[in-house]
């Protein structure tokens, strides 16, 4: 292959060079936009310009699925293969695309225009089966649309937003970003203005009093996190927004960013004021190019309006935000892995403690919160903690977003006060199951969650009630499967996701996610071996007990929960459940 023309690269790199290694991901993105992929001379030029050892550059390129060391088509078509999209027929769409383009997955079409890839989860579960065509999200894809999809004639699709209350999602639902003017006309930035009339300590006290718990999955009290960073020694301090939403079944943060970007910015600016931070980062997952663009435009708007930059709203606060685009790594949603990624490294989780509040980005005190968490903050300041607490339950105050996907009539994003029942969410709001179908199970809390069945439908959606029932609220994902779904296929897909996305740092997860997938693969095809249940129990237990980070510690959660509910699925030689069309005649083949 001819050497690429490197003449256009230096000017781009010169701009990024002062940031050193921390600009590695932006530089690789820029180079890949220019050349389509990252060849050896291009990667070497990037490493030399930023002062990063070349072996490290290679290590970073390899870590992120959306960076390529081989040529790819001008447009990469990514087909989601997470459980919900798989059940909705994503594989047939991928096959049709490949047939239309006369390529195998990962190959480049003969005209060089297309590559079709499987993607772990695109965060479009409400529109399954979903694709990302270049930078355009397409939902409800069908095999017969292959030609249309490749002609690029389909427009971006948007999902449904509903719920009992519309506070976090007040400006969401029409598919368009809310401009700064619109946001302000509807009362936006009032929370920040009020905060700036208070002392930082008083703002912190208000957030603590609100009882807000983190909405990214771990439910850590936000006020306590902020207090830790405020008290920590070291300057500068950072506020980081975790917009790397990648848990299969979860798409709330994408919609908040795409349709109401200023709410997140306002929350971050209030956090900066409360903890004394001067710099902020928003790390948006690579599979959300539209959200990245909208957030970037909102940051520009906010700067021009004096809401970001020096002397914000003439109140003496200096704070600015930089955006970072991920490149395909679920693990970067783990907060310390995300910080590593901003620093230009492979997204490997750090050992905790120390925690980011004291040793965060570049080793400095850092507040890192999820998009939805930041979106709650303007409400708290604007209404006051006491008023805010009127939403939700005593121990779980506030509104909560739920991402309902799978086999329900109206998949979508639903905002409810914490404290409603799961039945209300799935039946009153999401319209219940399709005609004639019965609920088989719902996976709560995302791929790292647990299954619920019919008898659990009256569980109350609050942190304390779910905790008592041994169920995770997680990131608010609920994936619904009716009686036509093959649960072994669902579990296999879930396991595949974790095997694909393990970072490889600690042994339990690096090895365990693959061994777990291999077993579930044979279970799904009706070839379970004797002892597979015990293998899954030991592998799962070891990942839970001994993994380094939250990914490994939860990578077996759905599988173990499924094993409790449907032990017969895992029996060697046992009849599988609803394996439509492919009865396991070969079951007796392997008796390990």
């Amino acid at each position, binding site marked *: 292959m001819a050497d690429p023309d490197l003449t256009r690269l230096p000017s781009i790199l010169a701009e990024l060079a002062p940031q050193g290694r921390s600009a590695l991901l932006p530089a690789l993105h820029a180079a890949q936009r220019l050349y389509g992929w990252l060849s050896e001379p291009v990667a070497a030029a990037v490493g030399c310009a930023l002062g990063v050892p070349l072996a490290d550059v*290679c*290590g970073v390129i390899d870590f992120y699925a959306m960076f390529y060391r081989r040529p790819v088509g001008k447009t990469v078509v990514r087909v989601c293969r997470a459980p919900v999209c798989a059940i909705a027929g994503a594989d047939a769409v991928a096959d049709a695309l490949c047939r239309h383009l006369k390529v195998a997955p990962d190959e480049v079409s003969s005209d060089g225009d297309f590559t079709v890839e499987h993607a772990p989860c695109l965060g479009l579960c409400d529109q399954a089966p979903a694709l990302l065509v270049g930078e355009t999200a397409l939902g409800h894809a069908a095999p017969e649309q292959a030609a249309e999809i490749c002609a690029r004639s389909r427009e971006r699709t948007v999902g449904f937003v509903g719920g009992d209350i519309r506070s976090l999602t007040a400006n969401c639902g029409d598919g368009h970003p809310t401009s700064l003017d619109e946001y302000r006309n509807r009362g936006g930035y009032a929370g920040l203005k009020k905060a700036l009339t208070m002392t930082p300590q008083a703002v912190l006290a208000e957030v603590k009093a609100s009882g807000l718990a983190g909405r990214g999955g771990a439910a850590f009290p936000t006020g306590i996190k902020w207090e830790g960073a405020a008290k920590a020694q070291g300057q500068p301090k950072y506020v980081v927004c975790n917009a790397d939403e990648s848990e299969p079944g979860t798409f709330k943060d994408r919609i908040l960013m795409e349709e109401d970007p200023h709410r997140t910015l306002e929350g971050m600016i209030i956090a900066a004021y409360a903890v004394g931070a001067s710099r902020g980062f928003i790390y948006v997952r690579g599979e959300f190019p539209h959200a990245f663009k909208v957030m970037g435009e909102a940051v520009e708007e906010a700067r021009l309006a004096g809401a970001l930059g020096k002397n914000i709203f003439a109140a003496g606060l200096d704070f600015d935000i930089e955006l970072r685009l991920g490149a395909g790594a679920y693990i970067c949603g783990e907060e310390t892995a995300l910080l590593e990624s901003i620093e230009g490294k492979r997204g490997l989780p750090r050992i905790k403690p120390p925690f980011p509040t004291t040793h965060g980005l570049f080793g400095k005190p850092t507040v890192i919160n999820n998009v939805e968490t930041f979106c709650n903050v303007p409400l708290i300041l604007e209404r006051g903690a006491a008023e805010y607490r009127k939403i939700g339950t005593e121990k779980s105050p506030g509104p909560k977003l739920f991402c309902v996907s799978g086999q329900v009539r109206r998949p979508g994003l639903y905002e409810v006060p914490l404290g409603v029942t799961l039945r209300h969410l799935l039946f009153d709001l999401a319209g219940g199951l399709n005609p004639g179908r019965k609920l088989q199970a719902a996976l709560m809390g995302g791929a790292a969650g647990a299954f619920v069945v019919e008898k659990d439908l009256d569980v109350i959606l609050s942190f304390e009630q779910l905790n008592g029932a041994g169920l995770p609220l997680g990131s608010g994902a609920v994936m619904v499967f009716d009686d036509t779904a093959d649960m072994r296929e669902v579990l296999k897909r879930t396991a595949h996701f974790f*095997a694909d996305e393990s970072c*490889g740092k600690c042994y339990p997860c690096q090895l365990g996610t693959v061994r777990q997938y291999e077993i579930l693969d044979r279970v799904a095809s009706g070839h379970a071996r004797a002892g597979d249940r015990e293998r899954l129990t*030991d592998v799962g237990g070891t990942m839970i007990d001994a993994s380094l980070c939250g990914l490994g510690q939860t990578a077996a959660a759905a599988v173990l929960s499924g094993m409790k509910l449907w032990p017969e699925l895992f029996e060697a030689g046992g009849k599988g459940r609803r394996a439509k069309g492919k009865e396991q005649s070969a079951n007796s083949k392997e008796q390990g």
Partner: protein
Amino acid sequence: MADVKLTIDGDSVAVPAGTTILKAAEQLGRSVPTICYHDHCTANGLCRICVVEVNGIKPLVPACLTPVHEGMKVTTASARAERARRTILEMLASAVDLSQAPEIQKLIGDYRADRARFPDAERRAQPILDDNPMYHRDYSKCILCWRCVQVCADDAQFTYAINFTGRGFETAIGTFFDKPMPETTCVFCGQCVGVCPTGALKPKRESLLEQELSPDEIMQVIEGGKKSRGKPR
């Protein structure tokens, strides 16, 4: 520094603040198994073989990294820790060639781990890389303990010739775009070979001796810079 008092498996011990559980256990003459840990490398808690149970903490904690605290109650061989160790060893044996890793083989015996626990498991098999006169790289034997990468970088040599490639199970040690060692920044200090616990990195002479070449033949191979005439694996 003030001493911290704790108990390990019921026995009391006082150690300086900042001591890890691993070192505190050593003071009591108790050995906690380790694989990736090396006294002269930064500990990263990768292998999780050294996990122990600490009262009040739900997940197991790595003894190599976790500092002791006052009143800590450590159990080094709880059922959960033993299950994790055995399973990690079984998974390691299912993926990696451990034939020249005597320490890990001993642990497999100690923990009664079943090397054949995972039938039909994908292995990380790779061809031997023989691209320089000093050492072979046989990454089928690599357990990803990170020691070589660390001594090549900030733990010792500051050479940065090698780093990781791939991700997850597919993670491997590699050079920039898989270049042969002589074309990298490698200075052939040999420190990576010195810290490798599994024979993945091996001095070429040792490797050739194992292939039953005579000293003369070895000299010829090394000085001539020719490819090894060793028997195929």
